[in-house]
């Protein structure tokens, strides 16, 4: 049970999608449904971003803008309703933002776990919809030094890149690190023309104008490991510069100088963003008498700049004033620093295995730029928790958890830098946000039971989760010109309360396995950005008012995983997901929630060759994903038609000069299908998803 956070070193060929219940049978999360992807599978299914790779898992979707930027969505909940936890510390970026992507290098991940279900009792606010948990590569068990080089190329957006990873151990001291660099051009879609409203935007060579990007990331870790004590320091930095579709950043069609933009498919013009995420984490473990103690300390700095040409919207001055201290191309800047700490103590008391703990974080958010959406703010949060697992008998475990959270948010005031016209020909610099201070308290709980019936494992869990309102929901008061919306926060919102019932049935036999995970969820007050029927002339500069309101919401759904190995070398896999949300009160009663994923079924057929002298772990697989049409929409969304997409994968390890070179080839969107993804931002402007994409990677291990 030493450091359960370490993944299994063994690489798993045909069992990528596992139910991790057993791995965590003796931990508090054992009651939840957990899907695990190891580093090998992440490479095998590699898509443009970590979340797009993970979205193959049933119940997991990516909310993306283009192929290289996306954030997690679990069972239809995303943004601040899913927590991403890396090395025990909650990852903090600008999750609320429309064009924010998760700042994590997918090549650095040792294993990824998806915890579906109400996980607030584990990680507090934001884990209301689930958790993406990322773990580093397993440390070596014996002295040595090893690593690998990996180079890759992708045809669709002419990606060239590579990563280098190394790790070593001497006695009790371990160290490791990695470096990734990716350079890609504008991506291609299977269409020559995109219709942003009625305006036809011609694409040169089917390239989505100005979506090129560059990424450079590194990680370093070092520490001490023994049976009784371990302490590891993790340092990482993620840096990306990425362009956005120049003809419509948001909903507004834009004319661009095509001669300038189409000169090269690799240059990055406006609009674009650069994001730097620095992270320093220390994880320590102490086995002290009958207690197991974990101490996680973290510091993160998320620095995000959004660049665009200055465009005078509404009452903004037609020419950018020379006396402005904000650079003319800096539309928005978000600078966030977070300090976090988690303490956990696990011990046994009779038949009970108890865990008590606390966590706290402090964050400081600063804004800049000529455009305003949310004010600067500071936030403190702390939580106290206790879990209990009671072994009723050999096959039955009962789970219980209780957690209390307190948070305090203080938002700063903000005033426009330009005059707006008010009633009666008066002008004024509008105060967009006034100082606001709010405190939130939440008490959540979870009870469950797990029981093994022969080859069937059953779990049932009922829990209450919460999420404290964020700065945007409380204090937004800005015009998002890209979306023709004037977003109005509501300072009196209370923390979201959600009740969820989860079931999990897994059956496994020698040649087959199946898992069904239905859930039912009720939100007493889901915080929702409601598009009203009104416009605001003065504060909103004539744009439609979008107000943060609360509504009651019912959600339900299920995921299904079936795998069958009729012959030793053949495997069939079926992955299905269904989720339905409905607002039960408020202005949008009867409507769904935004970005509701459509039901889908993925079928995969894999063949694994027998190992030979020269080739090892050779595989061939083809999968087809059928996604139903999505007619459950809410303004301003559109219906999204059904589609099916095929992917092909193959790979092998070639024994060459004492090392095994890993070769992989993927053809994503094999038939260059033109389709739209309902959870993509570019869906709103009817921009299809990426076309056919060949991905070739070569890995050379050493040591």
């Amino acid at each position, binding site marked *: 049970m030493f450091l359960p956070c370490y993944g299994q070193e063994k690489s798993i060929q045909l069992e990528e999608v596992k139910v991790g219940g057993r791995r965590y049978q003796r931990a508090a999360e054992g009651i939840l449904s957990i899907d695990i992807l190891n580093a090998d599978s992440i490479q095998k299914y590699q898509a443009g971003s970590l979340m797009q790779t993970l979205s193959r898992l049933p119940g997991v979707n990516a909310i993306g803008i283009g192929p290289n930027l996306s954030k997690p969505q679990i069972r239809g909940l995303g943004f601040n309703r899913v927590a991403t936890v890396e090395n025990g510390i909650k990852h903090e970026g600008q999750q609320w933002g429309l064009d924010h992507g998760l700042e994590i290098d997918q090549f650095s991940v040792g294993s990824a776990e998806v915890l579906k279900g109400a996980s607030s009792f584990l990680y507090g606010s934001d884990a209301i919809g689930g958790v993406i948990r990322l773990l580093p590569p397993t440390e070596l068990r014996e002295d040595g030094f090893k690593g690998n080089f990996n180079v890759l190329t992708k045809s669709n957006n002419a990606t060239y890149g590579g990563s280098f990873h190394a790790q070593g151990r001497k006695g009790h001291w371990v160290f490791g690190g990695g470096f990734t660099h990716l350079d890609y051009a504008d991506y291609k879609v299977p269409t020559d023309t995109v219709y942003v409203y009625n305006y036809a935007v011609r694409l040169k060579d089917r390239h989505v104008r100005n979506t090129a990007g560059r990424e450079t990331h590194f990680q370093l870790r070092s520490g001490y490991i023994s049976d009784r004590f371990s302490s590891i320091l993790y340092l990482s930095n993620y840096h990306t510069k990425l362009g956005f579709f120049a003809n419509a950043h948001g*909903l507004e069609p834009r004319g661009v100088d095509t001669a300038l933009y189409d000169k090269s498919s690799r240059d990055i013009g406006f609009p674009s963003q650069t994001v730097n995420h620095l992270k320093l984490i220390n994880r320590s473990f102490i086995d002290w008498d009958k207690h197991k103690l974990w101490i996680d300390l973290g510091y993160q700095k998320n620095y995000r700049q959004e660049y665009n040409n200055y465009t005078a919207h509404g009452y903004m001055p037609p020419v950018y004033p020379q006396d402005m201290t904000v650079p003319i191309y800096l539309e928005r800047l978000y600078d966030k620093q977070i300090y976090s700490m988690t303490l956990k103590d696990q011990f046994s008391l009779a038949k009970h295995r108890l865990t008590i703990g606390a966590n706290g974080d402090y964050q400081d958010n600063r804004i800049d730029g000529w455009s305003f959406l949310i004010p600067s703010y500071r936030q403190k949060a702390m939580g106290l928790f206790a879990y209990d697992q009671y072994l009723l008998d050999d096959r039955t475990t009962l789970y219980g958890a209780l957690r209390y959270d307190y948070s305090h948010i203080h938002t700063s005031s903000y005033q426009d830098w330009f005059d707006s016209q008010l009633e009666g020909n008066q002008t004024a610099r509008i105060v967009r946000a006034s100082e606001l201070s709010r405190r939130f308290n939440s008490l959540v709980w979870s009870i469950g039971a797990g029981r093994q019936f022969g080859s069937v494992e059953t779990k049932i869990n009922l829990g209450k989760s919460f999420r404290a309102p964020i700065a945007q929901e409380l204090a937004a008061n800005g015009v998002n010109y890209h979306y023709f919306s004037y977003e109005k926060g509501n300072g009196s919102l209370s923390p979201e309360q959600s009740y969820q019932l989860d079931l999990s*049935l897994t059956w496994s036999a020698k040649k087959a396995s199946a898992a069904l995970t239905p859930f039912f969820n009720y939100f007493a007050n889901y915080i929702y950005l409601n598009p009203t029927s009104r416009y605001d002339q003065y504060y909103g500069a004539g*744009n439609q008012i979008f107000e943060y309101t609360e509504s009651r919401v019912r959600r339900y759904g299920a995921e299904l995983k079936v795998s069958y190995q009729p012959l030793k070398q053949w495997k069939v896999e079926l992955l299905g997901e269904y989720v339905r949300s409905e607002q039960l009160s408020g202005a949008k009663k009867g409507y769904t929630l935004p970005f509701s994923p459509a039901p889908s079924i993925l079928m995969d057929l894999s063949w694994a060759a027998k190992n030979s002298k020269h080739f090892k772990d050779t595989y061939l697989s083809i999968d087809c994903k059928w996604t139903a049409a999505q007619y459950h929409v809410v303004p301003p969304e559109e219906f999204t038609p059904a589609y099916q997409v095929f992917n092909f994968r193959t790979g092998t390890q070639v024994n060459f000069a004492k090392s095994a070179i890993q070769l992989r080839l993927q053809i994503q969107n094999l038939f260059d299908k033109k389709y739209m993804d309902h959870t993509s931002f570019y869906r709103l402007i009817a921009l299809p998803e990426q076309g056919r994409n060949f991905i070739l990677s070569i890995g050379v291990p050493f040591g």
Partner: protein
Amino acid sequence: MKLFNMKVLQKYTLIAVLFVMAAACKKDKESIDTEKPTIAIDSDTAFPKQCSTIKRGTSFTFRSTLADNVALGSYSIDVHHNFDHHSHSTEIGECTVEAIKTPIKPFVLVKTVNIPGQPQQYNAELQIDVPADIDPGNYHFMIQVTDLAGWSTQKGISIRILE
């Protein structure tokens, strides 16, 4: 023992299946509005149209027929310059485009109107005075309309203001 397990398994499977079905098969009780409102700018009386010209120092009347399948909410007019050719109309057809220039005193108009009585159709009429001292040139005339459910439609028309 084995038999017992099968029974329990069957029972649990049945419960799970019923649970999903009960949830999934619930009929949508009330139909919700999923249609956007419309802005008609093609009729003879509609003004301005794509490539319309207006003389500065005069007044004109914006006229358009707005419609929705259920009930209209409000509309909004926004006039801003397009001297840098950055704004695009949503309409097909290129108009006379003047050379790129720096605005000095461009015409800016923001006007929102609540449509009274939640009608399904509304003939919008709004008198707009164009001051005599504003910059002539290419402008963008934007019309937005909402319905009661919060659906919205935008239309951007390229116009020219002449001296």
